[in-house]
């Protein structure tokens, strides 16, 4: 497992994607076939189910080290990762065990049916034969995510570099139906188990943020204006009775949205359409936060399907009955699209509405109103534009609503995970409610590493608790947070829910006296 352990070390230390790809290519060039297949499986969510409960591992570790539980937990909060905490706390190994990755994985699969006593013997033996980094890998193989910043995309790019095969095809291959014991590495890469011709997507056409006056865009009649939606941009492909859904991140997400697949399957023609995957309930678009509950699930339960139903707002058509339409004008494509939806009807897919306007100056009010129904703003598309490859300036513009902002005070801080596990990076913010504070948002993004380091030091000095992962801090640090929308909410103690809150800046110039009140926050809903 030394090679695999070295690979993980090489990948986790760097934040440069190219260096990660280099390390992966090196591994693929040197490791045995079975190990390569397991690596791909582990990094694409095809891992075997957990054979040993983490609580047992914790118990055995405490038994070996004779540490009290509170000290174990304190160590865990400092490290931020259970597998690593165990690896660091355990006494140094007395033996050396060297086995390839796939043998370890096979053994762990077999371990699942064993008794707890047998499991203990096996795990303790492994711990006593591996040095700290390998021990960490072993613990991670049992359960838990590697969190080393290798996305499916990075993996695919490494495989593409290795083999020269089209990355989209590789993406389909690794997501397809296979197990490390049912295929060879070459067959997997060559896509023997899939039919790529059917699933092949087109590159998305992307818009730039509007940076000029509307009047500079010329004649109003030359433009098609639609609402902009904050979901997951997706491409739905229906070819020869099969449906594929690709996300803009070039991941195949078909299995995550069974209701879309069911609806599309009923359509008569073959086609490729571009649109937005959104959480839609009772014909209203829900927040992106709601949609998030549906993402990256292994199983989509019935309960979840009812709780967060998904819809697709259709923007464009790229292919119809094997004919590539991308070189045609937006206007023409729209006609084809409307025709397609006249011939096939469904509640789940909806054509993106074209906004009727005569004058540029009508649009600003429409844009600002967009927030009230969870739209992000407007999209402006030139009627003569072709469907470009990627981002190209001039034909498509996004014009977002300005974010709302409030001033809040930090009341709790928590350590992050992965790269951020050593710093306090996750904050809870509050506004004033008469003489006390009420939580309004959690935010994780928007600060520089330098600011996070400074805040972490401050938290260390000013925390009220001395133990545990969450630190209550004195209400001193003031931040301006920005968010896309706000609504009344019964689930939140404050009575309001903010949409996509993030830190706009650290207001060192303000004190807690200057922060917003819950009344001033609620007033934003009325406006």
């Amino acid at each position, binding site marked *: 497992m030394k090679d695999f352990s070295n690979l993980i070390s090489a990948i*986790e230390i760097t934040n440069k994607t190219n260096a990660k790809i280099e390390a992966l290519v090196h591994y693929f060039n040197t490791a045995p076939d079975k190990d390569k297949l397991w690596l791909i499986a582990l990094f694409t969510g095809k891992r075997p189910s957990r054979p040993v409960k983490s609580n047992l591992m914790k118990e055995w570790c405490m038994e070996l080290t004779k540490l009290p539980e509170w000290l174990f937990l304190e160590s865990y909060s400092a*490290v931020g990762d259970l597998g690593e905490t165990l690896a660091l706390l355990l006494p140094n190994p007395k033996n050396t065990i060297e086995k390839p990755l796939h043998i370890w994985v096979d053994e762990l699969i077999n371990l699942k049916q064993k008794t707890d006593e047998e499991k203990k013997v096996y795990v303790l033996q492994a711990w006593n034969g591996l040095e700290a980094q390998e021990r960490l890998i072993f613990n991670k193989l049992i359960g838990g995510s590697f969190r080393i910043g290798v996305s499916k995309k990075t993996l695919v790019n490494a495989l593409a570099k290795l083999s020269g095969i089209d990355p989209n095809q590789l993406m389909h291959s690794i997501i397809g139906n296979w197990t490390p014991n049912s295929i060879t590495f070459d067959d997997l890469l060559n896509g023997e188990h899939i039919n790529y011709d059917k699933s092949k997507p087109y590159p998305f056409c992307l818009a730039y943020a509007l940076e000029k006056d509307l009047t500079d865009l010329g004649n109003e009649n030359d433009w098609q204006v639609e609402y902009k939606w904050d979901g997951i941009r997706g491409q739905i492909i229906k070819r020869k009775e099969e449906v594929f859904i690709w996300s803009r991140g070039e991941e195949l997400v078909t299995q995550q949205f069974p209701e879309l697949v069911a609806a599309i399957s009923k359509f008569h023609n073959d086609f490729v359409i571009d649109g937005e995957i959104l959480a839609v309930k009772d014909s209203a678009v829900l927040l992106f936060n709601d949609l998030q509950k549906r993402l990256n699930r292994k199983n989509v339960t019935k309960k979840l399907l009812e709780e967060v139903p998904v819809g697709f707002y259709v923007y464009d058509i790229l292919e119809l009955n094997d004919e590539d339409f991308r070189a045609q004008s937006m206007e023409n494509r729209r006609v084809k699209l409307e025709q397609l939806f006249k011939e096939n009807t469904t509640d789940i897919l909806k054509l993106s509405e074209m906004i009727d306007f005569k004058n540029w100056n009508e649009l600003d009010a429409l844009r600002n109103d967009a927030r009230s129904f969870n739209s992000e703003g407007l999209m402006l598309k030139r009627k003569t534009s072709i469907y470009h490859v990627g981002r190209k300036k001039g034909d498509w513009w996004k014009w977002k609503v300005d974010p709302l902002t409030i001033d809040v005070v930090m009341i709790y801080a928590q350590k992050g995970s992965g790269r*951020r596990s050593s710093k306090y990076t996750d904050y809870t913010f509050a506004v004033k409610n008469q003489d006390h504070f009420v939580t309004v948002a959690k935010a994780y993004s928007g600060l520089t590493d330098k600011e996070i380091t400074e805040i972490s030091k401050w938290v260390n000095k000013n925390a009220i608790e001395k133990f545990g992962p969450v630190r209550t801090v004195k209400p001193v640090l003031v931040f301006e947070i920005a968010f896309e929308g706000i609504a009344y909410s019964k689930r939140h103690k404050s009575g309001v829910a903010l949409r996509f809150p993030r830190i706009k800046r650290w207001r060192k110039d303000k004190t807690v006296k200057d922060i917003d009140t819950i009344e001033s926050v609620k007033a934003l809903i009325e406006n």
Partner: protein
Amino acid sequence: MKLIKFTKKGIYCIPGKFYLDPWYPVKYAVISHGHADHARWGNQHYLCQNDSKAILKHRLGKDISIESLGYNQPKNINGVQVCFFPAGHVIGSAQIKLEYKGFVVVFSGDYKTQPDFISTPFEPVKCHEFITESTFGLPIYKWKTEQELQQELQNWVLQNQQNNRTSVFLGYSLGKAQRILKLIEHVDDVFVHSAIHNLNTAISNSGIDIPKSTLITSDFKKENVQRKIVILPPALLGSKLIKKIPNAATAICSGWMHIRGNRRWKGVDAGFAVSDHADWEGLLQAVKATEAEKVYVTHGSQAVFSKYLNEIGIEAHELKTEFGDEEIADKEPQKSATL
């Protein structure tokens, strides 16, 4: 009668009328070692261990009033016997033993129990009360031996050379830099930043042997440095100088690098857990060896370490001090140099 008291200015010896590593200017300061959070500017008189003298003068000014003693060489100050014992932290680092009418207090300063190749090894001292640091006071911290570190660092340099890369180590200019120099001695030519170079010169001039290195200035010639070794203070991460180094592979040397999250946070190419502070076992051994009736735990994990000591039957108290930020330690010398 009480021998010490904890004041706003620092730890005060009542009968001796002097302070230990005070953080505000006082008349008489007894100094454990040369890091800037322990040896601060502005005291009227300094007392330190012999090997620290050149360092203090270099950092705080040539004309400070200063005297020094060897290890195990007691001095009587107002009836209190003061004596330095090796702390194994950096060159010249000392634990300070105070003895008055048969009652003994030891202030550890910063210490490391594992021997390295450059500082005088730590020596436990029996006492009634022990004031200990706790920077790495969690059982997750377990250091490798100096021989293992030597192997690790040297392998990394050799591997970089194979890949045509220049090895850049980041470490505090006092302590870490000299330790790295020793760990990679004889591997290849080493270039060091002026903060390190000047300190090395001051230390060498006082008769202590430090491996050879060359000063690197901002107008260095790339071809001279290519594939060699460079040591810089941590503050230079992201600086123009480091960006100019051809094909650099950068490594941070610090105990904090023991944790993955810390290694990854900095976005460097490698992190080596080379620490000048004691690990968990080191702290426990040191405390036990003093046989102290009462332990005061300062800078670091004081809450955790004192709770644990109490649980294993050693009376311990948390003590809030202003020690412990070695990052300041590396910035201040440059500031004071311009004063």
